[in-house]
């Protein structure tokens, strides 16, 4: 049987496969490159770049929660100068398709970042991290207001090189994510990344205090997946022509397939990389196998398929027989 064709598109951007890293979870790229060839990725998404270097928040910045991670990092990073001098050229040298994520505290700062990236080669797309505190609005996230989210997207679209796709990355904890998505697309976003982390809290029962110095933090990992899928599904239903990158708790090929079925054209892996540095090539292989087993020829054929009425779904979608999940405890050779 022929294997599935994995090419996908995000608007004008063509990718050899739909698997990306999630912003903030792939380091500078060098760390992951020790484990697999980054050219196997559909694209590498950078940690959100800020205008100035940032040390981020004090430790502890992370708490482990059921099927998830709670983090409050405070956007640590080298700032745009350091990024353009050291990190981006390295990715370009390796030939890695790179989506640069940008984060600012004001509309002006987002514009400045896009302007600074304008002349820089080696950028496949820009992802706008809209889940940043908006200084001009008492630190409330841009992602919480359609107007504020649209303003940063517009600023980036205006200053970014024409032809470079702009993706808006939204936060899930809003009353209606579709309204925010519409506002971003109207403001010039070529695609949407759904979703950033959802705000959560963990309390250390030893110290009797919040576990994180930042008190609350962002929930990521498999615990987030149903929320992320719901967001992708809702936004795809409202904006079927807008490409979506699905993010949130992807840990296996079938998880990735769920996102494609909900309407995503690509899928990013975040927290799973902390657990499993070679997750992306594995998930890619699993996705390929899952598509092949369902006799689906191309990734593009499954995007949004879950929205079709039941009768319209091809009948052979359930692969037989079910593949048993190997228990890691019992390797090939059973003790005799």
């Amino acid at each position, binding site marked *: 049987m022929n294997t599935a064709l994995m090419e996908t598109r995000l608007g004008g951007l063509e990718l050899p496969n739909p698997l990306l890293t999630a912003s903030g979870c792939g380091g500078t790229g060098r760390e992951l490159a020790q484990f697999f060839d980054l050219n196997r990725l559909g694209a590498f998404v950078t940690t959100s770049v800020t205008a100035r270097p940032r040390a981020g928040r004090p430790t502890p910045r992370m708490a482990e929660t059921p099927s998830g991670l709670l983090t409050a990092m405070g956007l640590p990073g080298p700032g745009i100068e350091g990024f353009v001098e050291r990190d981006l050229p390295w990715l370009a040298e390796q030939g890695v398709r790179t989506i640069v994520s940008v984060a600012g*505290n004001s509309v002006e700062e987002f514009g400045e970042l896009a302007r600074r990236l304008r002349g820089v080669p080696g950028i496949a797309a820009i992802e706008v991290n809209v889940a940043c505190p908006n200084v001009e609005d008492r*630190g409330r996230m841009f992602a919480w207001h359609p107007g504020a989210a649209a303003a940063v997207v517009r600023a980036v679209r205006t200053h970014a090189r024409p032809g470079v796709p702009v993706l808006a990355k939204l936060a899930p904890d809003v009353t209606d994510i579709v309204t925010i998505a519409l506002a971003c697309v109207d403001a010039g976003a070529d695609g949407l990344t759904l979703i950033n982390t959802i705000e959560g809290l963990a309390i250390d029962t030893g110290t009797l205090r919040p576990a994180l110095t930042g008190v609350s933090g962002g929930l990521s990992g498999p615990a987030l997946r149903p929320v992320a899928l719901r967001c992708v599904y809702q936004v795809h239903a409202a904006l079927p022509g807008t490409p979506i990158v699905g993010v949130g708790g992807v840990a296996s090929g079938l998880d990735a397939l769920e996102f494609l079925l909900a309407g995503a054209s690509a899928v990013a892996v975040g927290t799973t990389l902390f657990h499993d540095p070679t997750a992306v090539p594995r998930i890619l292989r699993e996705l390929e196998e899952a598509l092949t087993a369902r006799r689906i020829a191309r990734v593009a054929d499954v995007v949004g398929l879950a929205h079709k009425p039941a009768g319209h779904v091809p009948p052979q979608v359930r692969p037989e027989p079910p593949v048993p999940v190997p228990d890691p405890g019992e390797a090939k050779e059973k003790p005799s």
Partner: protein
Amino acid sequence: MSDTPVQTSATVLTVRQVQDYHALTLVAPAIAERFRPGQFVALAVGGEHTARLVRRCFGVYEVKPDYGGTVELVFADREPGTAWLAGRRSRDRLDLVGPLGRPFRLPRDPVSCLLVGGGPGGAALFALADTLHRRGCQVHFVLGGPSGGQVFGSRMARRIGDSATVTTEDGSLGEKATVRDVLPRVIQETGADVVYGCGPTDLLRSVTQVAGEYGLPSQVSVESFLRETGACGIGVCMTCMLPMHGEDGVTRMVRACADGPVLRGDRVRWGDLGTIPFDALGAPRVLAVAEGGDA
């Protein structure tokens, strides 16, 4: 490249109780052959479909060529993840990444070395002792802990060390003292040229301070800080940051896992661990409140 870390499915050879700790021996040839003293490994706990996403980082006690290459770790089973590890049986498989981090830098000349360990951290010093011996160095140990059961490797240290001093807070083994109490005396008696340390953060701070008073370089492994703060062990999550000042005098937040775990003791801002010092590169500025930033 053989110095890059690998991810591998390692087979459990043995899990045994050693004093108050557990020693876990894994067959992992690719990691054993790359390992250099001071490096660590990151283990996934809970099995393939676990809800526990954070890797657990451990220093390596010993690597051996037997059974094709084994790696042995020592840990206390206080948390659910380590309790799960302690419950493994031989032939179980574990997902292991390593070797990770920067190793101890080794002296070029056959000098006198003082190796200071606290709790299970003492385990990471034995591979170093081995290497130093082979280079003709003298190896002196100071090992400490709250009680005798929590001092790892005191008998081994007496056997292989040129000297070994053991301290416990309750006096149940060796001298009733802290490591810090005996360090000046041991430094003088052994004529130490360098001090290596591995253990709790307070101990590393003392080691650095006393070494500094005697004008000695100190290299310390912040493995226990990493174990408490880290999530990935490979340098991508940025949760394990600590403040360090560089040659240029600028304080930067560095990763305990990828920039360490072995650091020059005199460069670490021990008093500022768990904070972002105001003068660190990229620290929230004083105006942060007015800026309303994510600070």
